[in-house]
């Protein structure tokens, strides 16, 4: 495939298609939908971190006037524990137990029952009337507690080393001979790090409205990162065939990975089916914080050995990640991504999936990769320091490039990691002097990126404009990117292309919005569809001109004779051909469905300056530059926004975000006041440098960009704090009390 150059629209900062709706409040999010006869669903949640459910009596709730339906796990399709049923990365054995506890409640907030009633208040009251007989069990939340030999086991059916265990999965990547590698090292540094679970923090809570008609035809309006995922999971968990479920994607108010699974949709479907009324459910922020997936907390040990000349000869990582109540923590990202930026002869990277009594984790932006990179990139900083090397030079010396075999398997094609390091090194930021109590840190990161299934339909309207339908909820600018690409290919003004997101029954199967795959994959199907449309247009012009279609070229939005030899004809524009379509073979349009291949991984390198108030323990980021190989920035404004958003989330993870637990195992800060994501005034302008090393396997050179920017951040911040204070911190978040404690300021001050 040829990379398009001299673009008119690709690379332009066009007005975002969803912009006007969003700034005027017209955009319809899931909670904005309503139907005649609609009633409200509420969930009764477990107050206990771990308890056997002896019985549930719903009779008093059902008797409450206004209550129309009550459902429990008896109504949810059971997937027996002895057989795995995978849907994407989710196992339906665990999904059916996560949406509604079966025999055991496994975390505070675990759904026990759901009620639908004529008002929210009645539904809430009915939940209080449900009597649950619990046998409270011992519980554990932290990894160290969960893996103790005497820990209470969450899932007796899962064994590790022959015994029931809360270690529910293991993954190992191996390259070379780790022992022999460390023997070659002049410097070896080994450190242990902990990170806390952090939430994706999407502003829009989970919400849905679901109607089940008398004939079983089901319509779902909901906010998710994949209407097809919603349809499939709801079908699995309710027994309704997928052909009867129309899942309509609402405008989405943030996902960051956290909306790649369902919580409410199966329950609302069951309530709607039982009651015969449309059922609406909207989570409170507290429910979001207690019962939806954050990413894992972790405990990681990383050991890196290097020779005096700066060559890394061996690297070993052990990554324990909290899965929450059910197996499935992102050990693949932690163990697989963390050493990937480096060409290291001997690597051993092992991940352990650990269950404990907290909500089941969900994907969060490059799942697992930031956790692993935090540990690895901090140790690299120490190794570079002990070798007296500039941290970027140290990374350059060991950088992965085309032909490097990564420990997780692939041999890298042409990649742009070195370009990010060089751009960081020459960025004005890197050479700007810094002041007292300020420090500058750097770190890099990698994410796999993904391709997979996408579908698109490109239709020419009767008036000669274009409607593109794709199957992915737009959480990062895919509509704008696709409009740019389509305008480019068809040679027409961007404003003549309307991009919409189809529902499950109007567009072909399209996998989740996740894995930084959407623009990569949908640009491929849209390009092929647009090329088919252009061929049709050329054929139509050829027929009108009575020449061979090969003698017609498409340029600037019109058919032209390919050369003077083809004849002298006035160009036929898209409008002309649309108008003539009824007499010339009918409607013009094309659909393409592909399982896309060729997604290349993404690399980024970040520079972070902090200033530390050593009396208060507050570290503030005062300057930040994110450099990333983005392949091709189809819409640079959106690409920069992705980088800035990832960095903002990483700074929160580094400095303040954490779940705080009470002694009874419940989260004590289930809201944005005390779960401290950064606010605007916490951050400086986040600068970006877009390095473009086009992906040769993609028609526009696209690489995924949305996840890489979160990966290096925590290490960049930690390394900067070290340079500012001379103190290394091995645990997140580096919040004021911990920084102050680390600086031993209280002892010094008290002695004054």
């Amino acid at each position, binding site marked *: 495939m040829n990379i398009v150059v001299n673009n008119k629209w690709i690379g332009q900062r066009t007005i975002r298609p969803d912009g006007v709706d969003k700034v005027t409040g017209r955009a319809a999010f899931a909670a904005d939908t309503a139907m005649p006869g609609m009633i409200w669903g509420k969930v009764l949640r477990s107050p206990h971190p771990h308890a056997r459910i002896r019985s549930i009596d719903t009779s008093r709730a059902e008797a409450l006037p206004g209550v129309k339906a009550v459902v429990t796990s008896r109504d949810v399709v059971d997937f027996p524990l002895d057989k795995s049923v995978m849907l994407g990365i989710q196992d339906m054995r665990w999904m059916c137990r996560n949406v509604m506890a079966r025999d055991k409640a496994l975390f505070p907030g675990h759904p026990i029952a759901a009620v639908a009633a004529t*008002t929210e*208040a*009645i539904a809430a*009251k009915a939940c209080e009337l449900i009597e649950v007989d619990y046998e409270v069990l011992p519980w554990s939340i932290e990894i160290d507690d969960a893996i103790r030999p005497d820990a209470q086991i969450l899932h007796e059916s899962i064994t590790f080393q022959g015994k029931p265990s809360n270690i529910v999965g293991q993954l190992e990547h191996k390259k070379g001979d780790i022992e022999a590698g460390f023997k070659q090292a002049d410097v070896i540094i080994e450190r242990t790090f902990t990170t806390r679970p952090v939430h994706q923090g999407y502003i829009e809570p989970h919400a849905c409205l679901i109607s089940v008609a008398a004939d079983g035809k089901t319509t779902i309006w909901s906010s998710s990162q994949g209407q097809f995922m919603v349809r499939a999971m709801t079908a699995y968990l309710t027994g309704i065939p997928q052909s009867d479920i129309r899942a309509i994607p609402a405008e989405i108010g943030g996902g960051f990975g956290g909306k790649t699974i369902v919580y409410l949709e199966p329950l609302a479907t069951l309530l709607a089916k039982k009651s015969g009324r449309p059922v609406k459910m909207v989570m409170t922020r*507290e429910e979001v914080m207690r019962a939806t997936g954050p990413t894992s907390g972790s405990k990681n040990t990383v050991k890196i050995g290097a020779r005096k000349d700066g060559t890394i000869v061996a690297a070993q990582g052990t990554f324990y990640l909290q899965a929450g109540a059910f197996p499935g923590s992102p050990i693949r990202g932690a163990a697989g991504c963390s050493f990937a930026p480096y060409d290291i002869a001997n690597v051993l990277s092992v991940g352990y999936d650990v269950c404990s009594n907290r909500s089941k984790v969900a994907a969060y932006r490059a799942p697992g990769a930031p956790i692993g990179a935090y540990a690895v990139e901090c140790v690299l900083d120490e190794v570079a320091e002990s070798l007296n090397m500039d941290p970027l030079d140290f990374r350059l010396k060991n950088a992965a490039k085309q032909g490097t075999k990564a420990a997780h398997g692939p041999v890298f094609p042409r990649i742009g990691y070195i370009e990010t390091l060089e751009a960081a090194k020459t960025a004005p930021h890197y050479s700007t002097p810094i002041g007292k109590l300020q420090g500058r840190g750097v770190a890099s990161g990698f994410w796999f990126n993904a391709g997979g299934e996408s579908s698109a339909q490109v239709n020419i309207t009767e008036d000669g404009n274009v409607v593109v339908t794709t199957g992915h909820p737009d959480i990062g600018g895919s509509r704008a990117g696709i409009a740019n690409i389509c305008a480019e290919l068809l040679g027409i003004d961007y404003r003549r292309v309307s991009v919409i997101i189809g529902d499950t029954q109007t567009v072909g199967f399209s996998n989740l919005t996740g894995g930084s795959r959407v623009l990569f994959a949908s640009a491929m199907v849209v390009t092929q569809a647009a090329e088919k449309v252009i061929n049709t247009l050329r054929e139509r012009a050829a027929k009108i001109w009575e020449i061979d279609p090969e003698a017609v070229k498409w340029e600037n939005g019109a058919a032209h004779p390919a050369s003077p030899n083809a004849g002298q004809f006035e160009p036929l524009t898209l409008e002309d051909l649309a108008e003539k379509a009824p007499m010339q073979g009918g409607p013009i349009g094309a659909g393409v469905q592909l399982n896309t291949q060729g997604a290349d991984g993404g690399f980024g390198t970040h520079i972070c300056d902090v200033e530390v108030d050593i*009396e*208060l*323990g*507050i570290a503030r980021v005062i300057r930040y530059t994110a450099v990333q190989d983005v392949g091709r920035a189809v819409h640079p404004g959106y690409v920069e926004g992705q980088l800035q958003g990832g960095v903002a989330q990483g700074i929160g993870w580094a*400095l*303040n975000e954490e779940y*705080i637990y009470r002694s009874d195992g419940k989260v*004590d*800060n289930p809201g*944005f*006041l*005390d779960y*401290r994501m*950064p*606010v605007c*005034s*916490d951050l400086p302008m986040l600068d970006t440098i877009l390095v473009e090393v086009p992906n040769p396997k993609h028609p526009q050179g696209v690489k995924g960009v949305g996840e890489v920017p979160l990966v290096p951040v925590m290490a960049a911040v930690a390394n900067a704090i070290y340079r500012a204070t001379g103190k290394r911190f091995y645990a997140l978040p580096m*919040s*004021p*009390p911990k920084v*102050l*404690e680390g600086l031993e*300021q*209280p002892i010094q*001050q008290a002695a*004054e």
Partner: protein
Amino acid sequence: MTDIRYVAPQTLDEAIGAYAAAGSAARILAGGTDLLVQMRSGAVKPGLIVDIKKVRELTAVEEISGGGFRIGAAVPGAVLAEHPRFRQTWPGVLEAVNLIGSTQVQGRASAGGNLCNASPAGAIVTVQGPDGRRELKVEDVPAGPGRTNLKPGEILVSFTLPPRPPGSSDAYLRMIPRTEMDIAVVGCGVSLTLKDGVCTHARVGLGAVAPTALLVEPAAQALIGSRLDDTALTAAANACRAACRPIDDKRGTIAYRTQIAGVLLKRTTNIAAERAQGK
């Protein structure tokens, strides 16, 4: 399902009548930045909401003779910030009020509603109830977290900030992990008067380090008579730390809060002193 009644009386007497009659089921609504949040979370379910923003005295900022101010209990922070002269006299009080929430919240939130914050201004509070009007010191209003010394049916009417001698100013700092939209881990207010470089009068208030805001008299005494040199500041900081009776909670630890109280005392005093000297 019980209904919530809402009234917005035009006069204080009507407001007190409705409020007192409804007893413990009633809640006062000024800016609503606490009440509405509590209602949404289900923490409170009032039977009656008395909106006091229609009562003129409660929403007025008046200058009193000699250069003091009377501030209605429902005056939002943003309105106080726009007053042409209040900022010059009581910059620290204004800082304390306008550290609350965000710009949007400051358009609603009032000093009256946030009385549990440290206020070192030496203010007098006017309250009125079924038994008439009375005045009390601002530091005597809070009784504990979420509790006040107001009698049943009493409504906070206004704060009176006295006139100030020349060389007086104040400052307020709070420690929050973020830069806004946060609850103080520690708050510190200092009001002082300087004459020829010597501190002749001081009041020191601390917030979030005890069940109620603290007026730290030993810290004030450490400052009075000094030139606010390092020795005096360290003594005052240590007095602040000694006065702390904080708890460990999700917002901060005992050790951290105690340490920070002293740091903030020094910083706040320095700002107030610079202002008092017209710097």
